[in-house]
């Protein structure tokens, strides 16, 4: 059931992309658009086939950085959200700091991170983590606070401890919020990794796009973007499948 849902999601996404490709193909051929302005999708696909090894390798690197950043950013966000949900004073202290982090433009930080952490994987992971952090923090914090007050009162009358209320009620109540946070953050983490590669790297899809841009090599540029999109769609489908499995009791899962 869940696996079928995921496949249907993927099929729908592919059909949509194919539709756009057909329109672009017709456009490019009918008006003889030069390939340095808009390459025909068929040319992009041909190039992707030629450079499949390169795209897979660089895509894997970007995916790895984004995934590591996502896990790191999510971990820190969950920890802070727990602390903030626990204590109002800490919430008031930490939330402005979180907003400060959120408001600092990533493009300003990216070169700085490269300066601090070098040209390797670390700055890309750091940027992906940073960009993941805020949506996950807000969602998990709101989620932990969203527990039904009547149910909190019920557990309190049973003498349940704060920890028990947290485990039995607050965490499950937060799960739907965590999943919507993850949907936002996963794609952001990918973008973060690409931005990191853009500002200084010798590997990854961001680097491929950067070099292609400089050379007006648009077929490989679009190829790299398509690979990035495919990773994003697959990641989203995966989260969706996990969500339907974990939140089978939730109105969202029931409605779909």
């Amino acid at each position, binding site marked *: 059931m869940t696996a079928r849902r995921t496949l249907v999601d993927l099929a729908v996404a592919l059909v949509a992309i194919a539709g756009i490709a057909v329109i672009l193909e017709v456009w490019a051929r009918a008006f003889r658009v030069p390939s340095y302005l808009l390459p025909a999708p068929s040319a992009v696909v041909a190039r992707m086939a030629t450079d499949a090894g390169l795209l897979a390798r660089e895509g894997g690197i970007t995916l790895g950085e984004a995934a590591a950043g996502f896990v790191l950013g999510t971990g820190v966000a969950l920890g802070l959200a727990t602390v903030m949900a626990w204590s109002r004073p800490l919430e008031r202290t930490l939330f402005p700091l979180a907003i400060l982090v959120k408001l600092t433009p990533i493009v300003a930080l990216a070169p700085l991170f490269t300066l601090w952490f070098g040209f390797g994987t670390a700055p890309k992971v750091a940027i992906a983590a940073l960009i993941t952090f805020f949506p996950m923090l807000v969602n998990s914090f709101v989620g932990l606070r969203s527990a*039904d007050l*009547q*149910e909190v*009162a*019920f*557990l*309190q*009358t*049973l*003498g*349940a*401890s704060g920890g*028990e209320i947290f485990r*039995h*009620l607050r965490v*499950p109540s937060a*799960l739907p919020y965590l999943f919507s946070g993850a949907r936002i953050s996963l794609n952001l983490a990918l973008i973060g990794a690409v931005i990191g590669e853009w500002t200084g790297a010798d590997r990854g899809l961001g680097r491929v796009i950067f070099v292609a841009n400089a050379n007006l090599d648009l077929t490989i540029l679009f190829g790299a973007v398509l690979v990035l999109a495919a990773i994003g769609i697959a990641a989203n489908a995966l989260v969706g499948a996990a969500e339907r499995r974990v939140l*089978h*009791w*939730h*109105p969202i899962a*029931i409605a779909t």
Partner: protein
Amino acid sequence: MSVAIALHRVSAGYKSPVLDDINLEVGNEVVAVVGRSGSGKTTLLRLIAGLLEPTAGTVDLLGVAPAVARRRKRIGFVAQDARLHPWRTVRENVTLPLEVNRTARTNGHIGPDEWVARMGLSDAIDAYPHQLSGGMRQRVALARSLVIDPEVLLMDEPLASLDELTREDLRDELLRLWEGRARSVIYVTHDIEEAVLLADRVVVIGGTRPGRVRGEVRITLARPRTKALRREPRFHDLVEEVRGHLQ
């Protein structure tokens, strides 16, 4: 008759006072508290459950402070329109009270499955709350509050959100429960007839804020009671007496 719940000159409120000078003693009996919406009925329950501290006076539960009684797991609580834990099945919801605060002793010699059966929900024991009707959910709420076999049962308009026929069924269910084990029950409702049908005593609170005890009516109808009582003149006299205190 031993006193299980005792309120002595209790005042309470949030930003403004809600209840003032409440005196109430409840033994092994069913006391219905009636009053208009906003008269402080729920506040009274929160006080007794120890979820709210009084601004004046004392609340005593089984000879100790409510917070202590709570830690000893002596309080059953049924809210209006209980949402239960949506990620738990009926059985898991009813088992939940046994999973928390494990150090406290529970008298429960009737297991969760048996309570589910008594509420007529055996067929739905593995169902999730979203698969149940409102009436079934309230039955689960009742079962999960009784599974620890509490000495004190606090009920906050438990039938208010149900349709009339379901309410009648559940009222019968409650009447049967009262016949069984002697408990101290505080039953908050705004339905006067329901209060008279279920309770041994009806306490009317209200008036201009803060609310006070406006009157008390002893319900001398014999048990077991059935809904046929509602056609008897004596029932209507009692209902009118309660109504008189409300006006």
